[in-house]
Protein backbone atom coordinates (compact mmCIF):
# COMPACT_ATOMS: atom_id res chain seq x y z
CA UNK A 1 0.00 0.00 0.00
CA UNK A 2 2.61 2.52 1.08
CA UNK A 3 4.82 1.06 -1.61
CA UNK A 4 2.21 1.96 -4.22
CA UNK A 5 1.91 5.52 -2.87
CA UNK A 6 5.70 5.85 -2.79
CA UNK A 7 5.91 4.63 -6.38
CA UNK A 8 3.30 7.11 -7.59
CA UNK A 9 5.15 9.83 -5.74
CA UNK A 10 8.43 8.81 -7.39
CA UNK A 11 6.89 8.83 -10.85
CA UNK A 12 5.22 12.16 -10.21
CA UNK A 13 8.41 13.84 -9.14
CA UNK A 14 10.57 12.26 -11.85
CA UNK A 15 8.37 12.45 -14.91
CA UNK A 16 7.28 16.04 -14.49
CA UNK A 17 8.58 18.46 -17.11
CA UNK A 18 10.50 20.64 -14.64
CA UNK A 19 14.11 19.89 -13.83
CA UNK A 20 14.34 18.61 -10.25
CA UNK A 21 17.53 20.59 -9.78
CA UNK A 22 16.03 23.88 -10.94
CA UNK A 23 16.48 25.36 -7.47
CA UNK A 24 20.09 24.25 -7.39
CA UNK A 25 21.32 25.20 -10.82
CA UNK A 26 22.37 28.75 -11.38
CA UNK A 27 21.82 30.07 -14.91
CA UNK A 28 25.52 30.85 -15.06
CA UNK A 29 26.45 27.18 -14.64
CA UNK A 30 28.15 25.65 -17.62
CA UNK A 31 26.77 22.54 -19.26
CA UNK A 32 29.59 20.55 -17.66
CA UNK A 33 28.86 21.79 -14.16
CA UNK A 34 25.21 20.89 -14.64
CA UNK A 35 26.17 17.38 -15.74
CA UNK A 36 28.39 17.06 -12.69
CA UNK A 37 25.54 18.05 -10.41
CA UNK A 38 23.18 15.64 -12.14
CA UNK A 39 25.73 12.87 -11.59
CA UNK A 40 26.16 13.84 -7.96
CA UNK A 41 22.44 13.39 -7.33
CA UNK A 42 22.32 10.25 -9.45
CA UNK A 43 19.94 11.82 -11.95
CA UNK A 44 22.00 10.68 -14.94
CA UNK A 45 21.26 7.02 -14.29
CA UNK A 46 18.43 5.14 -15.96
CA UNK A 47 15.01 5.62 -14.40
CA UNK A 48 14.63 2.08 -13.08
CA UNK A 49 17.97 2.29 -11.31
CA UNK A 50 16.95 5.59 -9.70
CA UNK A 51 13.74 3.93 -8.65
CA UNK A 52 15.48 1.06 -6.86
CA UNK A 53 17.88 3.41 -5.13
CA UNK A 54 14.88 5.47 -4.02
CA UNK A 55 13.09 2.43 -2.61
CA UNK A 56 16.22 1.18 -0.87
CA UNK A 57 16.77 4.59 0.73
CA UNK A 58 13.14 4.79 1.79
CA UNK A 59 13.36 1.42 3.52
CA UNK A 60 16.34 2.71 5.46
CA UNK A 61 14.42 5.84 6.39
CA UNK A 62 16.69 7.92 4.17
CA UNK A 63 14.78 10.78 2.53
CA UNK A 64 17.65 12.80 1.14
CA UNK A 65 18.73 16.34 1.97
CA UNK A 66 16.59 19.44 1.64
CA UNK A 67 17.94 21.77 -1.06
CA UNK A 68 16.94 24.80 0.92
CA UNK A 69 17.81 23.94 4.51
CA UNK A 70 20.83 21.75 3.61
CA UNK A 71 19.58 19.43 6.33
CA UNK A 72 18.38 15.82 6.10
CA UNK A 73 14.69 15.77 5.13
CA UNK A 74 13.91 13.09 7.69
CA UNK A 75 15.16 15.31 10.49
CA UNK A 76 13.22 18.34 9.26
CA UNK A 77 10.00 16.36 8.82
CA UNK A 78 10.30 14.85 12.26
CA UNK A 79 10.79 18.33 13.74
CA UNK A 80 7.52 19.51 12.19
CA UNK A 81 5.39 16.41 12.73
CA UNK A 82 4.72 17.09 16.44
CA UNK A 83 3.36 20.57 15.63
CA UNK A 84 0.95 19.12 13.10
CA UNK A 85 -0.12 16.30 15.41
CA UNK A 86 -0.77 18.64 18.34
CA UNK A 87 -2.93 20.86 16.16
CA UNK A 88 -4.78 17.90 14.62
CA UNK A 89 -5.50 16.07 17.84
CA UNK A 90 -6.46 19.08 19.92
CA UNK A 91 -8.91 20.26 17.26
CA UNK A 92 -10.35 16.80 16.70
CA UNK A 93 -10.83 16.14 20.39
CA UNK A 94 -12.76 19.40 20.75
CA UNK A 95 -14.75 18.53 17.63
CA UNK A 96 -15.58 15.02 18.79
CA UNK A 97 -16.57 15.94 22.34
CA UNK A 98 -18.81 18.69 21.01
CA UNK A 99 -20.14 16.62 18.11
CA UNK A 100 -20.97 13.57 20.22
CA UNK A 101 -22.79 15.53 22.91
CA UNK A 102 -24.72 17.75 20.53
CA UNK A 103 -25.43 14.88 18.15
CA UNK A 104 -26.91 12.77 20.94
CA UNK A 105 -28.90 15.73 22.19
CA UNK A 106 -30.30 16.43 18.71
CA UNK A 107 -31.38 12.82 18.36
CA UNK A 108 -33.15 13.07 21.69
CA UNK A 109 -34.88 16.30 20.63
CA UNK A 110 -36.00 14.79 17.34
CA UNK A 111 -38.31 17.06 15.33
CA UNK A 112 -37.92 20.03 17.64
CA UNK A 113 -37.26 23.51 16.27
CA UNK A 114 -33.65 23.29 17.45
CA UNK A 115 -33.11 20.06 15.57
CA UNK A 116 -34.63 21.40 12.38
CA UNK A 117 -32.46 24.50 12.49
CA UNK A 118 -29.31 22.67 13.54
CA UNK A 119 -28.95 20.32 10.60
CA UNK A 120 -28.65 22.95 7.84
CA UNK A 121 -26.37 24.93 10.14
CA UNK A 122 -24.06 21.95 10.55
CA UNK A 123 -24.08 21.37 6.80
CA UNK A 124 -23.11 25.00 6.33
CA UNK A 125 -20.04 24.60 8.55
CA UNK A 126 -19.00 21.70 6.34
CA UNK A 127 -19.43 23.83 3.24
CA UNK A 128 -17.03 26.53 4.42
CA UNK A 129 -13.54 26.57 2.99
CA UNK A 130 -11.39 25.92 6.07
CA UNK A 131 -8.95 28.68 5.22
CA UNK A 132 -11.78 31.20 4.85
CA UNK A 133 -13.10 30.29 8.29
CA UNK A 134 -9.54 30.75 9.53
CA UNK A 135 -9.35 34.15 7.85
CA UNK A 136 -12.62 35.24 9.48
CA UNK A 137 -11.51 34.14 12.95
CA UNK A 138 -8.13 35.77 12.38
CA UNK A 139 -9.67 39.07 11.27
CA UNK A 140 -12.20 39.20 14.10
CA UNK A 141 -10.37 37.75 17.11
CA UNK A 142 -6.83 38.66 16.29
CA UNK A 143 -6.79 41.86 14.25
CA UNK A 144 -10.04 43.56 15.27
CA UNK A 145 -10.37 42.45 18.89
CA UNK A 146 -6.72 41.64 19.55
CA UNK A 147 -7.50 38.68 21.82
CA UNK A 148 -5.19 36.14 20.22
CA UNK A 149 -1.85 36.25 18.38
CA UNK A 150 -2.03 36.15 14.58
CA UNK A 151 0.21 33.22 13.71
CA UNK A 152 3.08 30.91 14.52
CA UNK A 153 3.43 28.79 17.64
CA UNK A 154 5.20 31.21 19.95
CA UNK A 155 5.89 34.88 20.45
CA UNK A 156 9.03 36.18 18.78
CA UNK A 157 12.07 35.93 21.02
CA UNK A 158 10.67 33.26 23.33
CA UNK A 159 12.63 30.04 23.66
CA UNK A 160 11.59 26.73 25.17
CA UNK A 161 13.67 23.69 25.88
CA UNK A 162 11.92 20.71 24.34
CA UNK A 163 8.44 20.16 22.98
CA UNK A 164 6.82 19.53 26.34
CA UNK A 165 7.86 22.90 27.75
CA UNK A 166 6.62 24.59 24.59
CA UNK A 167 3.31 22.75 24.38
CA UNK A 168 2.40 23.41 27.99
CA UNK A 169 3.26 27.10 27.89
CA UNK A 170 0.58 29.76 28.00
CA UNK A 171 2.10 31.43 24.99
CA UNK A 172 1.75 28.30 22.86
CA UNK A 173 -1.82 27.65 23.95
CA UNK A 174 -2.79 31.21 23.02
CA UNK A 175 -1.35 30.59 19.56
CA UNK A 176 -3.15 27.27 19.33
CA UNK A 177 -6.67 28.57 20.02
CA UNK A 178 -7.56 30.08 16.64
CA UNK A 179 -6.19 27.37 14.30
CA UNK A 180 -7.58 24.63 16.54
CA UNK A 181 -11.00 26.33 16.65
CA UNK A 182 -10.98 26.70 12.86
CA UNK A 183 -10.35 23.01 12.36
CA UNK A 184 -12.74 22.04 15.15
CA UNK A 185 -15.63 24.05 13.72
CA UNK A 186 -15.03 22.43 10.37
CA UNK A 187 -14.73 18.88 11.64
CA UNK A 188 -17.45 18.73 14.31
CA UNK A 189 -20.04 18.05 11.60
CA UNK A 190 -18.94 14.49 10.95
CA UNK A 191 -19.16 13.13 14.52
CA UNK A 192 -22.30 15.18 15.12
CA UNK A 193 -24.25 13.82 12.15
CA UNK A 194 -22.92 10.30 12.70
CA UNK A 195 -23.84 10.35 16.38
CA UNK A 196 -27.29 11.67 15.62
CA UNK A 197 -28.14 9.06 13.00
CA UNK A 198 -26.70 6.23 15.11
CA UNK A 199 -28.72 7.39 18.09
CA UNK A 200 -31.89 7.47 16.03
CA UNK A 201 -31.21 3.92 14.92
CA UNK A 202 -30.30 2.62 18.37
CA UNK A 203 -33.30 4.28 20.04
CA UNK A 204 -35.59 2.04 17.98
CA UNK A 205 -33.93 -1.15 19.14
CA UNK A 206 -35.47 -3.61 21.53
CA UNK A 207 -33.04 -3.19 24.39
CA UNK A 208 -33.81 0.53 24.57
CA UNK A 209 -37.53 -0.15 24.62
CA UNK A 210 -36.82 -2.74 27.31
CA UNK A 211 -34.92 -0.19 29.38
CA UNK A 212 -37.86 2.19 29.09
CA UNK A 213 -40.31 -0.52 30.14
CA UNK A 214 -38.12 -1.22 33.15
CA UNK A 215 -39.02 2.32 34.18
CA UNK A 216 -35.54 3.77 33.96
CA UNK A 217 -35.39 7.52 33.72
CA UNK A 218 -35.15 9.18 30.36
CA UNK A 219 -31.61 10.30 31.10
CA UNK A 220 -30.43 6.80 32.03
CA UNK A 221 -31.99 5.33 28.90
CA UNK A 222 -30.48 7.89 26.58
CA UNK A 223 -27.02 8.17 28.11
CA UNK A 224 -26.32 4.76 29.66
CA UNK A 225 -28.05 2.54 27.14
CA UNK A 226 -28.47 4.26 23.79
CA UNK A 227 -25.48 6.61 23.65
CA UNK A 228 -22.96 3.95 24.64
CA UNK A 229 -23.96 1.79 21.72
CA UNK A 230 -24.23 4.64 19.27
CA UNK A 231 -20.73 5.74 20.18
CA UNK A 232 -18.85 2.81 18.60
CA UNK A 233 -18.95 3.83 14.92
CA UNK A 234 -18.27 7.44 15.91
CA UNK A 235 -15.08 6.40 17.66
CA UNK A 236 -13.85 4.44 14.66
CA UNK A 237 -14.52 7.46 12.48
CA UNK A 238 -12.00 9.33 14.65
CA UNK A 239 -9.10 7.49 13.02
CA UNK A 240 -10.36 8.32 9.55
CA UNK A 241 -10.87 11.93 10.62
CA UNK A 242 -7.24 12.15 11.74
CA UNK A 243 -6.06 10.98 8.34
CA UNK A 244 -8.42 13.38 6.64
CA UNK A 245 -7.52 16.30 8.88
CA UNK A 246 -3.78 15.88 8.26
CA UNK A 247 -4.48 16.65 4.59
CA UNK A 248 -6.81 19.53 5.34
CA UNK A 249 -4.26 21.04 7.71
CA UNK A 250 -2.30 22.24 4.71
CA UNK A 251 -4.43 25.34 4.19
CA UNK A 252 -5.10 26.15 7.83
CA UNK A 253 -1.42 25.85 8.73
CA UNK A 254 -0.71 28.27 5.90
CA UNK A 255 -3.30 30.82 7.08
CA UNK A 256 -1.94 30.78 10.61
CA UNK A 257 1.74 30.36 9.64
CA UNK A 258 1.74 27.23 11.77
CA UNK A 259 5.09 25.47 11.32
CA UNK A 260 3.73 22.05 10.47
CA UNK A 261 4.00 19.45 7.74
CA UNK A 262 1.31 20.95 5.53
CA UNK A 263 2.75 24.43 5.42
CA UNK A 264 6.19 22.96 4.84
CA UNK A 265 4.82 21.00 1.88
CA UNK A 266 3.38 24.17 0.35
CA UNK A 267 6.60 26.11 0.92
CA UNK A 268 8.79 23.30 -0.37
CA UNK A 269 6.69 22.91 -3.53
CA UNK A 270 6.77 26.67 -4.17
CA UNK A 271 10.54 26.76 -3.64
CA UNK A 272 11.11 23.66 -5.84
CA UNK A 273 12.70 21.94 -2.85
CA UNK A 274 11.79 18.49 -4.15
CA UNK A 275 13.36 16.21 -1.55
CA UNK A 276 11.60 18.11 1.21
CA UNK A 277 8.27 18.20 -0.65
CA UNK A 278 8.55 14.49 -1.29
CA UNK A 279 9.36 13.78 2.34
CA UNK A 280 6.50 15.89 3.69
CA UNK A 281 4.06 14.32 1.21
CA UNK A 282 5.21 10.83 2.14
CA UNK A 283 4.88 11.54 5.85
CA UNK A 284 1.30 12.78 5.34
CA UNK A 285 0.54 9.70 3.24
CA UNK A 286 1.95 7.45 5.98
CA UNK A 287 -0.39 9.02 8.53
CA UNK A 288 -3.37 8.65 6.16
CA UNK A 289 -2.65 4.99 5.42
CA UNK A 290 -1.95 4.12 9.07
CA UNK A 291 -5.17 5.80 10.17
CA UNK A 292 -7.25 3.99 7.53
CA UNK A 293 -5.72 0.74 8.78
CA UNK A 294 -6.38 1.66 12.40
CA UNK A 295 -10.00 2.44 11.55
CA UNK A 296 -10.44 -1.03 10.03
CA UNK A 297 -8.83 -2.65 13.06
CA UNK A 298 -10.85 -0.63 15.57
CA UNK A 299 -13.99 -1.46 13.69
CA UNK A 300 -13.69 -5.20 14.18
CA UNK A 301 -12.14 -4.83 17.62
CA UNK A 302 -14.82 -2.60 19.11
CA UNK A 303 -17.71 -4.36 17.48
CA UNK A 304 -17.13 -8.14 17.39
CA UNK A 305 -20.31 -8.57 15.34
CA UNK A 306 -18.44 -7.33 12.25
CA UNK A 307 -15.93 -10.17 12.05
CA UNK A 308 -18.68 -12.77 12.25
CA UNK A 309 -20.54 -11.32 9.28
Amino acid sequence: MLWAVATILFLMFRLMPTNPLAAYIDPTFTEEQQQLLMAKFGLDRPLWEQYFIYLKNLLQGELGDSFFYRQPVGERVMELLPNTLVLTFSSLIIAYVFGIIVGAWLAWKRDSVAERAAIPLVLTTRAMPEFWLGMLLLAVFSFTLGWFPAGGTRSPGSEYDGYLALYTSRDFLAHLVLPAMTLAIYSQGLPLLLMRSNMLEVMNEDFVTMARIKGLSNWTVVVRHAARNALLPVMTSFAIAVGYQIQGNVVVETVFSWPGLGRELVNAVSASDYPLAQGAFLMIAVVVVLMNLLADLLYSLLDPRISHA
Partner: protein
Amino acid sequence: MHSDSASAEPIRGGSVLRWIRRIHLPLDDPFAIAGLLIYAVFILVAVFADQLATHDPLEILFTQDYQLAADLRPGEDGFVLGTTSLGRDIYSQLVYGSRSALLIGITAAFMVAVIGTVVGLLAGYFRGWTDIVLMRAADIAFGIPFLPFVIVLAAFLEPSIWNVVFAMALILWRDTGRVIRSQVLTLRTRAYIDAARVSGSSDLKIVFRHIAPNILPLSFLYGSIAIGWAILTEAAISFLGFGDPETISWGYMLQDAYASQALSTGGYYWFVPPGICIVLVVVAGFFISRGYEEILFPKLKE
Protein backbone atom coordinates in the same frame (compact mmCIF):
# COMPACT_ATOMS: atom_id res chain seq x y z
CA MET B 1 -52.69 0.90 -35.74
CA HIS B 2 -52.71 4.05 -33.68
CA SER B 3 -51.34 2.37 -30.62
CA ASP B 4 -48.70 0.66 -32.73
CA SER B 5 -47.21 3.88 -34.00
CA ALA B 6 -47.30 5.37 -30.51
CA SER B 7 -45.30 2.54 -29.03
CA ALA B 8 -42.96 2.02 -31.94
CA GLU B 9 -42.05 5.54 -32.97
CA PRO B 10 -40.94 7.60 -29.97
CA ILE B 11 -38.37 5.16 -28.65
CA ARG B 12 -35.55 7.67 -28.80
CA GLY B 13 -37.39 10.58 -27.22
CA GLY B 14 -39.04 8.19 -24.83
CA SER B 15 -35.81 6.72 -23.60
CA VAL B 16 -34.23 10.14 -23.17
CA LEU B 17 -37.24 11.27 -21.15
CA ARG B 18 -37.13 8.12 -19.13
CA TRP B 19 -33.48 8.71 -18.29
CA ILE B 20 -34.28 12.23 -17.21
CA ARG B 21 -37.02 10.90 -15.00
CA ARG B 22 -34.59 8.33 -13.60
CA ILE B 23 -32.50 11.17 -12.19
CA HIS B 24 -35.41 11.95 -9.87
CA LEU B 25 -34.93 15.62 -9.09
CA PRO B 26 -35.83 15.73 -5.40
CA LEU B 27 -38.66 18.23 -5.61
CA ASP B 28 -40.56 17.44 -2.43
CA ASP B 29 -37.83 18.43 0.01
CA PRO B 30 -37.72 22.15 0.90
CA PHE B 31 -33.96 22.16 1.37
CA ALA B 32 -33.39 20.44 -1.94
CA ILE B 33 -35.56 23.07 -3.61
CA ALA B 34 -33.56 25.80 -1.90
CA GLY B 35 -30.42 24.12 -3.19
CA LEU B 36 -31.76 23.96 -6.73
CA LEU B 37 -32.78 27.63 -6.52
CA ILE B 38 -29.28 28.64 -5.38
CA TYR B 39 -27.85 26.72 -8.31
CA ALA B 40 -30.28 28.40 -10.68
CA VAL B 41 -29.26 31.87 -9.46
CA PHE B 42 -25.55 31.13 -9.78
CA ILE B 43 -25.96 29.62 -13.22
CA LEU B 44 -27.85 32.73 -14.35
CA VAL B 45 -25.15 34.99 -12.90
CA ALA B 46 -22.46 32.96 -14.63
CA VAL B 47 -24.26 33.04 -17.97
CA PHE B 48 -25.00 36.77 -17.84
CA ALA B 49 -21.71 37.75 -16.16
CA ASP B 50 -20.84 40.09 -19.04
CA GLN B 51 -24.07 42.03 -18.52
CA LEU B 52 -24.01 41.97 -14.71
CA ALA B 53 -20.42 43.03 -14.16
CA THR B 54 -19.80 46.77 -14.02
CA HIS B 55 -16.08 46.62 -14.78
CA ASP B 56 -13.42 44.39 -16.25
CA PRO B 57 -12.48 42.27 -13.19
CA LEU B 58 -8.73 42.57 -13.82
CA GLU B 59 -8.62 46.18 -14.95
CA ILE B 60 -6.89 48.64 -12.66
CA LEU B 61 -9.39 51.44 -12.14
CA PHE B 62 -9.10 55.12 -11.45
CA THR B 63 -11.46 57.53 -9.76
CA GLN B 64 -12.85 60.61 -11.49
CA ASP B 65 -10.03 62.77 -10.17
CA TYR B 66 -7.46 60.40 -11.72
CA GLN B 67 -6.43 58.79 -8.45
CA LEU B 68 -5.85 55.03 -8.29
CA ALA B 69 -9.19 53.60 -7.12
CA ALA B 70 -7.51 51.45 -4.48
CA ASP B 71 -8.98 50.20 -1.19
CA LEU B 72 -12.30 51.97 -1.66
CA ARG B 73 -15.03 51.01 0.79
CA PRO B 74 -18.30 49.57 -0.53
CA GLY B 75 -20.43 52.24 -2.17
CA GLU B 76 -17.62 54.75 -2.53
CA ASP B 77 -17.44 56.26 -6.00
CA GLY B 78 -20.09 53.85 -7.23
CA PHE B 79 -18.14 50.65 -6.55
CA VAL B 80 -20.85 48.43 -5.07
CA LEU B 81 -18.53 46.26 -2.98
CA GLY B 82 -15.49 48.51 -2.99
CA THR B 83 -12.16 47.87 -4.69
CA THR B 84 -9.05 45.81 -4.02
CA SER B 85 -5.75 47.32 -2.99
CA LEU B 86 -4.73 47.32 -6.65
CA GLY B 87 -7.86 49.21 -7.67
CA ARG B 88 -9.93 46.37 -9.10
CA ASP B 89 -13.70 46.15 -8.71
CA ILE B 90 -14.65 43.50 -6.14
CA TYR B 91 -18.25 43.13 -7.30
CA SER B 92 -17.21 42.37 -10.89
CA GLN B 93 -14.65 39.84 -9.70
CA LEU B 94 -17.35 38.17 -7.65
CA VAL B 95 -19.63 37.96 -10.69
CA TYR B 96 -16.94 36.49 -12.93
CA GLY B 97 -15.85 34.15 -10.15
CA SER B 98 -19.17 32.32 -10.50
CA ARG B 99 -18.11 31.33 -14.01
CA SER B 100 -14.97 29.46 -13.04
CA ALA B 101 -16.70 27.97 -10.00
CA LEU B 102 -19.51 26.48 -12.06
CA LEU B 103 -17.20 25.41 -14.85
CA ILE B 104 -14.91 23.57 -12.45
CA GLY B 105 -17.76 22.24 -10.32
CA ILE B 106 -19.77 20.80 -13.17
CA THR B 107 -16.90 19.29 -15.17
CA ALA B 108 -15.29 17.80 -12.06
CA ALA B 109 -18.60 16.37 -10.86
CA PHE B 110 -19.22 14.92 -14.31
CA MET B 111 -15.78 13.28 -14.42
CA VAL B 112 -16.06 11.90 -10.89
CA ALA B 113 -19.57 10.56 -11.47
CA VAL B 114 -18.79 9.01 -14.87
CA ILE B 115 -15.48 7.41 -13.90
CA GLY B 116 -16.81 6.21 -10.54
CA THR B 117 -19.94 4.80 -12.12
CA VAL B 118 -18.10 2.92 -14.87
CA VAL B 119 -15.54 1.54 -12.40
CA GLY B 120 -18.28 0.48 -10.00
CA LEU B 121 -20.34 -1.12 -12.76
CA LEU B 122 -17.44 -3.08 -14.23
CA ALA B 123 -16.04 -4.18 -10.86
CA GLY B 124 -19.43 -5.15 -9.48
CA TYR B 125 -20.73 -6.91 -12.55
CA PHE B 126 -17.71 -8.80 -13.83
CA ARG B 127 -16.18 -9.53 -10.41
CA GLY B 128 -13.04 -11.68 -10.54
CA TRP B 129 -9.87 -10.03 -11.82
CA THR B 130 -11.59 -6.87 -13.02
CA ASP B 131 -12.94 -6.38 -9.53
CA ILE B 132 -9.65 -7.10 -7.78
CA VAL B 133 -7.64 -4.76 -10.01
CA LEU B 134 -10.15 -1.90 -9.84
CA MET B 135 -10.68 -2.11 -6.09
CA ARG B 136 -6.92 -2.30 -5.47
CA ALA B 137 -6.63 0.88 -7.50
CA ALA B 138 -9.35 2.41 -5.32
CA ASP B 139 -7.44 1.36 -2.17
CA ILE B 140 -4.35 3.11 -3.50
CA ALA B 141 -6.39 6.21 -4.34
CA PHE B 142 -7.63 6.20 -0.75
CA GLY B 143 -4.02 6.16 0.45
CA ILE B 144 -3.06 9.29 -1.47
CA PRO B 145 -3.63 12.49 0.49
CA PHE B 146 -5.85 14.42 -1.89
CA LEU B 147 -5.03 18.07 -1.25
CA PRO B 148 -1.24 17.56 -1.13
CA PHE B 149 -1.59 15.58 -4.36
CA VAL B 150 -3.41 18.45 -6.07
CA ILE B 151 -0.80 20.91 -4.80
CA VAL B 152 2.10 18.94 -6.24
CA LEU B 153 0.25 18.35 -9.50
CA ALA B 154 -0.74 22.00 -9.84
CA ALA B 155 2.80 23.11 -9.10
CA PHE B 156 4.29 20.90 -11.80
CA LEU B 157 1.74 21.54 -14.52
CA GLU B 158 0.99 24.86 -16.15
CA PRO B 159 -1.19 26.97 -13.85
CA SER B 160 -4.76 26.32 -14.94
CA ILE B 161 -8.13 25.78 -13.36
CA TRP B 162 -8.26 22.37 -15.07
CA ASN B 163 -5.58 20.97 -12.78
CA VAL B 164 -8.18 20.60 -10.06
CA VAL B 165 -10.56 18.80 -12.40
CA PHE B 166 -7.76 16.54 -13.58
CA ALA B 167 -6.69 15.68 -10.04
CA MET B 168 -10.27 14.96 -8.99
CA ALA B 169 -10.73 12.68 -11.99
CA LEU B 170 -7.55 10.84 -10.98
CA ILE B 171 -8.40 10.39 -7.30
CA LEU B 172 -11.96 11.10 -6.23
CA TRP B 173 -13.73 8.43 -8.29
CA ARG B 174 -12.77 6.11 -5.45
CA ASP B 175 -15.77 6.83 -3.19
CA THR B 176 -18.32 6.72 -6.00
CA GLY B 177 -16.73 3.58 -7.41
CA ARG B 178 -16.88 1.68 -4.14
CA VAL B 179 -20.47 2.57 -3.33
CA ILE B 180 -21.72 1.80 -6.82
CA ARG B 181 -19.86 -1.49 -6.89
CA SER B 182 -21.61 -2.71 -3.74
CA GLN B 183 -24.94 -1.57 -5.15
CA VAL B 184 -24.26 -3.47 -8.39
CA LEU B 185 -23.32 -6.55 -6.39
CA THR B 186 -26.80 -6.68 -4.89
CA LEU B 187 -28.53 -5.74 -8.15
CA ARG B 188 -26.88 -8.45 -10.23
CA THR B 189 -28.48 -11.19 -8.13
CA ARG B 190 -32.00 -9.92 -8.87
CA ALA B 191 -34.32 -12.14 -10.86
CA TYR B 192 -34.76 -9.69 -13.76
CA ILE B 193 -31.04 -9.76 -14.44
CA ASP B 194 -31.15 -13.54 -14.62
CA ALA B 195 -34.13 -13.22 -16.93
CA ALA B 196 -32.16 -10.88 -19.20
CA ARG B 197 -29.22 -13.25 -19.26
CA VAL B 198 -31.37 -16.28 -20.02
CA SER B 199 -33.06 -14.42 -22.85
CA GLY B 200 -29.63 -13.94 -24.42
CA SER B 201 -28.65 -10.37 -23.58
CA SER B 202 -24.93 -9.67 -23.80
CA ASP B 203 -23.01 -8.61 -20.69
CA LEU B 204 -22.62 -5.06 -21.95
CA LYS B 205 -26.32 -4.81 -22.65
CA ILE B 206 -27.18 -6.06 -19.17
CA VAL B 207 -24.75 -3.64 -17.54
CA PHE B 208 -25.76 -0.52 -19.40
CA ARG B 209 -29.41 -1.23 -20.10
CA HIS B 210 -30.58 -3.05 -16.99
CA ILE B 211 -28.21 -2.16 -14.19
CA ALA B 212 -26.94 1.33 -15.00
CA PRO B 213 -30.35 3.05 -14.96
CA ASN B 214 -30.93 1.78 -11.42
CA ILE B 215 -27.74 3.22 -10.02
CA LEU B 216 -28.05 6.53 -11.82
CA PRO B 217 -29.54 8.40 -8.83
CA LEU B 218 -26.57 7.22 -6.78
CA SER B 219 -24.19 8.61 -9.39
CA PHE B 220 -26.02 11.91 -9.23
CA LEU B 221 -25.83 11.89 -5.45
CA TYR B 222 -22.06 11.60 -5.61
CA GLY B 223 -21.90 14.03 -8.49
CA SER B 224 -23.74 16.71 -6.52
CA ILE B 225 -21.35 16.25 -3.60
CA ALA B 226 -18.37 16.43 -6.00
CA ILE B 227 -19.48 19.87 -7.25
CA GLY B 228 -18.89 21.25 -3.79
CA TRP B 229 -15.62 19.39 -3.41
CA ALA B 230 -14.33 20.75 -6.68
CA ILE B 231 -15.15 24.35 -5.78
CA LEU B 232 -13.62 23.99 -2.30
CA THR B 233 -10.49 22.37 -3.73
CA GLU B 234 -10.07 25.01 -6.40
CA ALA B 235 -10.46 27.70 -3.74
CA ALA B 236 -7.80 26.05 -1.56
CA ILE B 237 -5.38 25.64 -4.46
CA SER B 238 -5.82 29.24 -5.58
CA PHE B 239 -5.48 30.39 -2.00
CA LEU B 240 -2.17 28.56 -1.65
CA GLY B 241 -0.95 30.35 -4.77
CA PHE B 242 -1.02 27.45 -7.22
CA GLY B 243 -3.97 28.71 -9.22
CA ASP B 244 -4.12 30.43 -12.56
CA PRO B 245 -3.52 34.16 -11.98
CA GLU B 246 -5.28 34.99 -15.25
CA THR B 247 -8.59 33.45 -14.23
CA ILE B 248 -10.76 35.16 -11.66
CA SER B 249 -12.09 32.72 -9.10
CA TRP B 250 -13.36 33.14 -5.57
CA GLY B 251 -10.29 31.35 -4.27
CA TYR B 252 -8.09 33.79 -6.18
CA MET B 253 -9.96 36.72 -4.61
CA LEU B 254 -9.41 35.30 -1.13
CA GLN B 255 -5.73 34.75 -1.83
CA ASP B 256 -5.44 38.30 -3.14
CA ALA B 257 -7.14 39.67 -0.01
CA TYR B 258 -5.02 37.55 2.33
CA ALA B 259 -1.76 38.46 0.61
CA SER B 260 -2.71 42.17 0.58
CA GLN B 261 -3.18 42.28 4.36
CA ALA B 262 -6.95 42.84 4.08
CA LEU B 263 -7.32 40.90 7.34
CA SER B 264 -5.37 43.38 9.42
CA THR B 265 -6.87 46.47 7.77
CA GLY B 266 -10.45 45.37 8.40
CA GLY B 267 -11.24 44.79 4.71
CA TYR B 268 -14.20 42.55 5.48
CA TYR B 269 -16.01 43.74 2.35
CA TRP B 270 -13.18 42.17 0.36
CA PHE B 271 -12.83 38.65 1.80
CA VAL B 272 -16.31 37.98 3.19
CA PRO B 273 -18.37 37.99 -0.07
CA PRO B 274 -16.31 35.39 -2.00
CA GLY B 275 -16.43 33.06 1.00
CA ILE B 276 -20.19 33.44 1.26
CA CYS B 277 -20.57 32.60 -2.43
CA ILE B 278 -18.49 29.45 -1.98
CA VAL B 279 -20.51 28.41 1.07
CA LEU B 280 -23.81 28.99 -0.77
CA VAL B 281 -22.88 26.93 -3.82
CA VAL B 282 -21.37 24.10 -1.80
CA VAL B 283 -24.22 23.97 0.69
CA ALA B 284 -26.69 23.93 -2.21
CA GLY B 285 -24.98 20.75 -3.40
CA PHE B 286 -25.29 19.24 0.09
CA PHE B 287 -28.99 20.09 0.27
CA ILE B 288 -29.66 18.51 -3.10
CA SER B 289 -27.69 15.41 -2.18
CA ARG B 290 -29.70 15.12 1.05
CA GLY B 291 -32.83 15.24 -1.03
CA TYR B 292 -31.43 12.38 -3.08
CA GLU B 293 -30.52 10.43 0.00
CA GLU B 294 -34.08 10.59 1.19
CA ILE B 295 -35.27 9.22 -2.13
CA LEU B 296 -32.61 6.54 -2.17
CA PHE B 297 -32.74 5.59 1.49
CA PRO B 298 -36.31 6.32 2.58
CA LYS B 299 -35.58 4.90 6.04
CA LEU B 300 -33.87 8.18 6.93
CA LYS B 301 -37.20 9.94 6.83
CA GLU B 302 -38.87 7.77 9.42
